[in-house]
């Protein structure tokens, strides 16, 4: 057996906090990468996956240092190389593709100038050759107009394209090892498929080794040969992709696999005999931004003639890619962005477009929960004060009664009561999202608009939040309007799903039977683009090229 390309042995990385205390963030991590092999590092946020990936280049973030072990790359210990020596290795031996490619490009230089920069720094080839090679890479990465795309500036290409261009930038120096740091996390599913395909074919054709950092098991399954499961800076399990997916040994891995595909929502026993008005009835709503035109439509239309109904006790999912208007829909219903034409009825009564004209009682019954709990909670207020405000505002509760209700709310979202003395910054992501939810529950609403509330959470935590939502619904007879870009999440909680594309409603389908019942071509494309927990999924996936071109335009 030949020497592996990369050999990481007992790697320890520690950080010094501002109080001078040292903490171990990576603890005795060992793994290897053979020639031509792609190894995935998977774990939750804070599990140390990016820190390890950076250590492969001999780099640690400010405040961190490699305190033990070795990182052998082609027989050289990256952990002990000096700055200038490490710089010589970077670009032509090891290369890095960041999560946000858009931020990695200089907006004032053309793409080609930046792609060939690596070859100029290391004097690998003449400028002429480098440009030729870059165009070859553009071809290989299936970029549109590969011969001229290099003359454009970074803002003139789409998110999926810039991600592939940053791969071209990394691969031009012919590195032996390429590190992909969550390169598709910020992309829409339909784009992700193309980008993954491009990465996979380029890596295979060149026989390069790679490290693929991700939190998404299904994405990793498509591209990696072996998977390293990380938690709290330590390796939990290492195995081939198939083995991790099919027969995980470690309890944590099992939890991760289980959380990936939550069970489909079973639905409430609906009381269809009682003829009640729908909770929410949205009719032909048009909304947007900018000045109002002569035709009574805003300059930029974000929602075009959208209609939907939400029956009592049911949950409605809204799904679509970024920019399809799904968040705008939530803001419009909540009255934050008044609609310009159309009507919205809430429990049989018409709503005013502008929330300032709505009664306090109407506001109370309709609550909105935002995606990012980090920004949705005032960082200067304690959890108790955050939850207490809606109680005082809507229910005029004060003193002991309010304190008691805050405790009850914390119990409801399964948080320990002493948490109410803490500030949001002192909570974990999942805890913050629960507080965010509890604040909406404090109003005792009938309908909660959930705007991507699980998208920023780790898979396991998101699954727990979804379970909580379902439980609360049973206890409190709520309805949810659940907005997400993640099909599995929507299917886990919704009865019906509305598919949106460019501000228009494509169709409304029963959530459990999306794959079978989707009739609109865009819905079909969307459903088929969701990665499955199956190593052969990407290779077997056949999508109509015409369709992809028509809808992705990227």
């Amino acid at each position, binding site marked *: 057996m030949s020497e592996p390309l990369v050999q990481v042995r007992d790697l320890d990385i520690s950080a010094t906090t501002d109080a001078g205390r040292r903490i171990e963030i990576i603890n005795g991590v060992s793994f290897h990468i053979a020639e031509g092999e792609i190894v995935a590092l998977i774990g939750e946020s804070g599990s140390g996956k990016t820190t390890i990936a950076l250590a492969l280049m001999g780099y640690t973030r400010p405040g961190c240092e490699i305190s033990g072990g070795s990182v052998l790359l082609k027989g050289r210990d990256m952990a002990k190389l000096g700055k200038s020596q490490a710089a010589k290795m970077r670009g032509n031996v090891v290369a890095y593709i960041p999560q946000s490619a858009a931020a990695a490009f200089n907006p004032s230089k053309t793409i080609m100038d930046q792609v060939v920069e690596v070859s100029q720094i290391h004097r690998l080839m003449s400028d002429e050759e480098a440009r030729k090679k870059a165009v070859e890479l553009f071809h290989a990465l299936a970029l549109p107009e590969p011969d001229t795309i290099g003359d454009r500036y970074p803002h003139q290409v789409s998110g999926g394209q810039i991600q592939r261009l940053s791969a071209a930038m990394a691969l031009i120096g012919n590195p032996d090892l390429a590190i992909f740091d969550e390169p598709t996390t910020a992309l829409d599913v339909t784009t992700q498929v193309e980008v993954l395909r491009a990465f996979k074919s380029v890596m295979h054709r060149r026989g390069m080794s790679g490290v693929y950092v991700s939190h998404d098991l299904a994405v990793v399954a498509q591209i990696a040969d072996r998977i390293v499961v990380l938690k709290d800076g330590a390796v939990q399990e290492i195995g081939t992709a198939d083995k991790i997916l099919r027969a995980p040994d470690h309890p944590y891995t099992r939890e991760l696999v289980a959380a990936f595909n939550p069970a489909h929502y079973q639905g409430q026993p609906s009381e269809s005999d009682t003829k009640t008005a729908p909770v929410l009835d949205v009719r032909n709503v048009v909304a947007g931004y900018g000045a109002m035109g002569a035709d009574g439509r805003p300059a930029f239309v974000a929602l075009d003639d959208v209609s939907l109904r939400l029956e009592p006790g049911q949950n409605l999912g809204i799904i679509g890619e970024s920019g399809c208007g799904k968040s705008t829909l939530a803001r419009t219903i*909540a009255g934050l962005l008044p609609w310009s034409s159309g009507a919205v009825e809430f429990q049989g009564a018409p709503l005013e477009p502008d929330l300032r004209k709505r009664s306090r009682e109407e506001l109370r019954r309709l609550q*909105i929960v*935002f995606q990012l709990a980090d920004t*949705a909670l*005032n960082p*200067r207020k304690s959890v108790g004060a955050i939850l207490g405000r809606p109680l005082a*505002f*809507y229910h005029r509760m004060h003193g002991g009664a309010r304190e008691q209700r805050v405790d009850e709310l914390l119990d409801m979202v399964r948080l320990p009561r002493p948490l109410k003395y803490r500030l949001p910054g002192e909570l974990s992501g999942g805890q913050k999202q629960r507080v965010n939810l509890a*604040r909406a529950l404090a109003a005792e609403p009938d309908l909660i608009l959930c705007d991507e509330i699980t998208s920023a959470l780790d898979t396991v935590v998101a699954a727990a939040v979804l379970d909580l939502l379902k439980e609360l619904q049973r206890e409190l007879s709520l309805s949810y309007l659940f907005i997400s870009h993640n099909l599995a999440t929507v299917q886990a909680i919704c009865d019906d799903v509305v598919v949106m594309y460019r501000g228009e409603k494509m169709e409304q389908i029963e959530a459990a039977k999306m794959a079978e019942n989707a009739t609109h071509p865009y819905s079909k494309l969307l459903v088929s683009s969701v990665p499955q927990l199956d190593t052969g999924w990407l290779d077997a996936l056949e999508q109509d090229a015409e369709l992809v071109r028509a809808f992705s335009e990227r």
Partner: protein
Amino acid sequence: MRGGLLSSARWGIHFNWVGIGASVVILFWAVVALFAPLLTPHPVGQIVDFDYFGPMSADYWLGTDYLGRDMLSRIMVGARYTVGIALAGVFLACFTGVMLGMTAAVVGGVFDTVLSRFLDAFNSIPSLLFGLVVVAAVGSSIPVLVITLGLIYAPGSYRFARALAVNTNTMDFVTVARARGEGILYLVREEIFPNIIGPVLADFGLRFVWIVLLLSGLSFLGIGVQPPNADWGALVRENLGGLPFAAPAVIFPSVAIASLTISVNMLIDNLPQRVRDRGE
């Protein structure tokens, strides 16, 4: 970045040496200003020395001024005027500026546009010139000085607070409060203000320094604090004649102005920072 006297987990803050030194100087001037009548070695208005522009001596630590009055006593009492007027002025400036700035950011629309343009126009008048005109028109007294200084520095404070508040205003927690139906006063007081207080305090300190300098400038021109009272700027002016004799009377008020303004600046740049890691 690290290090310093109070840099321990027990205190929960970092405070470096520059910051500590600066706060000692500020504390010193604050104590002097507060207790000046008790501390002065000689009556402030009395001519105690037959010589004028006297040198530093055991009796008169900082020499005597152009009439033979004790300089140390005059600087101590001058601190009251300088620090007192500047503090009142900066409170006035920051209170109006920050309140209007936050309201403009939250209300937005026409209110914001009109107010911003009006204060921009106001801001374009040179501050010393404006002070000269006002004092020439209504005469110099301490309330007039405080109000003039406050007005001159309010637009800057408004600009600063509005810029901060506009950023905070777009945060989701403000949107949530708005969706809840909260009024403008609540949004400004509970959601915006606590989140901009840090930079606003830094701006407060900086503005204090500018006001001290402007007040000293006005006094130097003779339209600030009127004789027989004198703030530090006025002390420099009245003793300017001592410059050819290298009299301490002209140097020490200048040193006092410099030490206070530089210290406040230093303190702002080196405010104590809370230690984020509270350990186990």
